[in-house]
């Protein structure tokens, strides 16, 4: 088949993958510092989108202000969640923590539409709908913007993790007791990482909300984000970018060639297959640390 077809599928897929990676970033940030897999990250993204919409539309704030304030609110929302719920779960078996985040997901999925209405909302962040044309290739403007924002944010996250504060967060993820012993406030560090996860969620929510509208289905981004996070390695921020691009391309290219043959949408299978294959071959992901508990 022609190269441009492949290139277009791959390009748009990669950009979409980066937008998944932004959701996955939240999962990774939290897992990296506290070893908790936050299965409510999709719901956090949904709340973020609702909050920004609420600030911009019913409250009438200018868009930039809504975005900034929304991001701030989500930062504190993430911290509050850690403080109120997860801190009590220290020492509980992993299934309890997983279930807690799933329960929270249900809670948020009910609360946000109850507060703001279940009907889909419009989120216009001023990205035009005309595509960018590169030869025979069309690139979706919204995805391009989303991909760029995702790369920038993930890059910022990487920079942050190399700063002094970031080194301390990494230290916490290495050894919480030792971190305590050298004066790092572990609770605060984990709280900060949840706050950062809230920020990632807000950004992902805004981008995805502008693409698909704001309603509870934003929380379904979770499974794609999980695939990305698992493939990249649950504790690797850089891995999220690579894995995001990889999952995005696979998800777009494989159906592009296989769907016409089998006559059905194979796209949903890609994320699940990626997760399973990763588990079989490299459970710790492409760039994750290898010290996960193996049987």
């Amino acid at each position, binding site marked *: 088949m022609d190269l441009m077809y492949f290139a277009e599928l791959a390009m748009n897929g990669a950009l979409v993958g980066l937008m998944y990676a932004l959701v996955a970033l939240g999962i990774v940030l939290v897992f990296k510092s506290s070893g908790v897999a936050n299965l409510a990250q999709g719901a956090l993204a949904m709340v973020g989108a609702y909050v920004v919409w609420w600030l911009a539309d019913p409250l009438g704030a200018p868009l930039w202000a809504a975005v900034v304030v929304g991001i701030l609110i989500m930062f504190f929302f993430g911290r509050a969640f850690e403080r109120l719920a997860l801190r009590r779960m220290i020492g509980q078996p992993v299934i309890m923590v997983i279930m807690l985040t799933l329960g929270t997901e249900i809670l948020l999925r009910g609360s946000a539409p109850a507060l703001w209405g279940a009907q889909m909302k419009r989120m216009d962040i001023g990205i035009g709908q005309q595509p960018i044309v590169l030869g025979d290739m069309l690139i979706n403007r919204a995805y391009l913007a989303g991909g760029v924002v995702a790369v920038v944010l993930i890059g910022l996250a990487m920079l942050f993790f190399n700063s002094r504060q970031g*080194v301390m967060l990494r230290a916490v993820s*290495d050894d919480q007791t*030792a971190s*305590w*012993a*050298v*004066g790092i*406030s572990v609770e605060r560090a984990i709280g900060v990482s949840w706050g950062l996860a809230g920020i990632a969620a807000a950004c992902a929510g805004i981008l995805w909300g502008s693409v698909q509208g704001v309603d509870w289905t934003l929380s379904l981004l979770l499974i794609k984000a999980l695939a990305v996070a698992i493939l990249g390695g649950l504790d690797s921020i850089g891995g999220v970018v690579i894995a995001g691009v990889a999952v995005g391309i696979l998800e777009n290219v494989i159906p592009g060639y296989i769907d016409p043959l089998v006559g059905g949408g194979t796209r949903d299978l890609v994320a699940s297959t990626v997760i399973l294959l990763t588990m079989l071959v490299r459970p710790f992901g492409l760039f994750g640390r290898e010290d996960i508990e193996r049987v």
Partner: protein
Amino acid sequence: MLSLGNVEVVYDRVFLAVKGVSIEVSEGGMVALLGANGAGKSTTLKAISGLLMPERGEVTRGEVRFNGRDVAHLSPPERVRLGIAHVLEGRRVFEHLTPDENLIAATSMHRDRRRIAELREKVYGYFPRLKERLSTKAGYLSGGEQQMLAIGRALMIEPKLLMLDEPSLGLAPYLVDEIFAILEQLNRDGVGILLVEQNAAAALDIASDAYLIENGRIVMSGAAGTLKENPDIQEFYLGRAGRKDYHAVKHYRRRKRWLA
């Protein structure tokens, strides 16, 4: 500087680990805490640094005073800010961080960047070996280097009291000597040291005072020299009673006197 008065620690609200422990470390002093496995040495240190919490331990009685202030209810990071540094047993460096980052991780109490740079240079001054391995992950360092890194990391706190839990564990004898030499050096530079050791001989050589803890209780204390001369210590901790013909000796004849 540090005084423990009648401290009692209970784990999980049921398990009594230490009881009635009283320890004094004077400003710039060097005190050794000796004892067998499970005697309660590490628990005592954790009671001082506050690290009992993650293990669900609790100081249920007694007081922990540092420079006259009761610290028993402060969080570990707050105690660190007062100048209590705890080098954990088994080194516990941040394995996925480089030595440099390990040091930086321990600077949360400092605001001044120049001060941090100075401190780092000072640590590299004590441990020139670390500077050679600057960019490898700490997990790949040798045991001795990791121990140095752990001590160096604690020094970034600018501690008034440095507590070390078994710094000689699993190290070759020449490395033990090297590390103990550095400890003496530090002590001379004014850092108070509380040293927990099984290697009693090495510890008593450099310490000025020593406590002996057994079954969660302090059973003997005094100047290091005095303890060294004690026949019980000699036999049970220093192994200096000389070779004995165990066929000839009724080896149960000698009991620890304090158990009577």
